């Protein structure tokens, strides 16, 4: 039961992180390797604000907001300009790797290299469940339902989905691709930084603490299908559960290797992911 809960707990964090990866990938066809580092920046800001204000909830929200703004500016002034100048998605993906390293250096300069404790939003137990797990579950559900509502039920969400399907046609209808995609980057990193602050109490916070969750959430997105939001959610939970159950019952040393093994098997058997669309080329 404990492994199931801890698996579900990290699975939900992977969902929040992978959803950002998914949103950015769908609208720009770029894999944002700075996603974890932008979220880490928000977590550091939340930590600093908490030390000054002692109000964790507001600190986490403000930290996430700052992450969103940094991400939006990064898109607007680097990625968008790159796109405009004809840099291809691979080149832009490499730019995100460069940005990740810049952020890491920046975080070391500001907050130092030594790992730090991050307070939990809730302590103790809620019935038979750890309170932290309940908080993660509720926040994840709230954010996912919120995102579902925004993308499926609002005009802005329709614009996001339209851009993800055909940017050129969206522009011919007067949709401001630049503005909509900038906001997508904001949302993706806002959610990512919330995930960072939720998982931070389980780790020590340093500039690399989200690297492992980022890689695993990326694997979750690939396993579920990088172009299907439901696939991304299911894939991330599968990865979280598989990792923890394998680590608990079989070998903790090989639990990360097991996650990569799952990804390998899925890529061989179902390359498009569990719920992803099969790509067929006409010959």
């Amino acid at each position, binding site marked *: 039961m404990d492994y199931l809960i801890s698996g579900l707990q990290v699975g939900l964090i992977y969902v929040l992180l992978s959803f950002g990866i998914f949103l950015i990938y769908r609208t720009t066809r770029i894999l944002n390797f700075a996603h974890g580092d932008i979220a880490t920046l928000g977590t550091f800001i939340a930590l600093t604000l908490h030390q000054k204000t002692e109000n964790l909830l507001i600190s986490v929200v403000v930290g996430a907001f700052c992450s969103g703004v940094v991400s939006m500016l990064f898109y607007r002034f680097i990625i968008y300009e790159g796109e405009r100048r004809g840099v291809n998605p691979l080149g832009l993906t490499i730019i995100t790797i460069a940005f990740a390293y810049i952020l890491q250096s920046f975080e070391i300069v500001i907050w130092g290299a030594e790992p730090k404790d991050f307070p939990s939003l809730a302590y103790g137990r809620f019935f038979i469940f750890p309170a932290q797990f309940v908080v993660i579950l509720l926040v994840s559900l709230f954010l996912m339902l919120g995102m579902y509502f925004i993308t499926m039920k609002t*005009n802005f969400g329709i*614009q996001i*989905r339209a851009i993800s*399907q055909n940017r050129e*046609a969206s522009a011919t*209808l007067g949709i401001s691709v630049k503005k909509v995609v900038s906001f997508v980057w904001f949302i993706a990193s806002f959610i990512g930084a919330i995930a960072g602050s939720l998982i931070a109490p389980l780790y020590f916070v340093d500039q690399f603490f989200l690297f492992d969750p980022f890689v695993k959430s990326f694997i979750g997105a690939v396993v579920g299908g990088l172009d299907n939001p439901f696939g991304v959610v299911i894939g991330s939970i599968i990865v979280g559960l598989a990792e923890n159950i394998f680590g608990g019952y079989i070998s903790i040393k090989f639990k990360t290797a097991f996650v990569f093994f799952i990804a390998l098997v899925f890529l061989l058997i179902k390359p498009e992911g569990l719920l992803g669309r099969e790509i067929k080329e006409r010959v």
Partner: protein
Amino acid sequence: MPILEVKNIETVYYDRLYVLKGVSLEINQGEIRVVLGPNGAGKTTLAKSISGLIKDQPRKGDIIFEGRSIARKEAEKISSMGLVLVPEDRGVFPELTVEENLKLSGWTKKDTWVFDLFPNLYQKLQEISNHLSGGEQQMLAIARAIIKKPKLLILDEPSLGLSPKLTNELFKTLKRLNEELKTTMLIVEQNARVSVEICHYGYVMENGKMVFEGKADDLKDNELIKELYLGGSVKKTEKGWKLYKTRRRW
């Protein structure tokens, strides 16, 4: 004053491939004008250059829409000014429903007038656009464009992939749009038979240049256009081999 003036534009791909080589045209309020031409003539590039879909193009020349230059402006800004393109591939968003596609143009449930022109769409509002037939997708693309009440509607190959019957229906609808809503249209087409019937004025493009222009009747009476586009016969000239070469090329 014309609503659109294209002045001697040049569009170049990859810094060396000249697709438009000094193209000029104009269109007046309330008119339907057509640009005819074979594959590779540069018709789609012309439509995209006017609509701002080719980055930093046209390289030379100017495009004046309602007295303001729109050359090299971003597509969304040009669309917001009232110049709307229905692209060659129709630009229908396949994973969105018909209703969601319409909403992207600002459609609300009060806008029932659009179903007087496109009744099929009303029955299929909740259907995923990818499940529509080619004709229905074209109707959706045009409906979505006219909801924006464009000052100029550019249609790129609207008959592409449609059966002759559907093509006739589509062009009748375009004629109605022009007559009832006074929509000004620039149609880029290969199908001269139907487009010449509804247009007021036409151009013929070849190898990135305008090679002929005239009123609809001039187009219908032109022997070469009759032969190459309208399936009519041409009297044999003294240099018959020249005509043969032209046919092969087109």
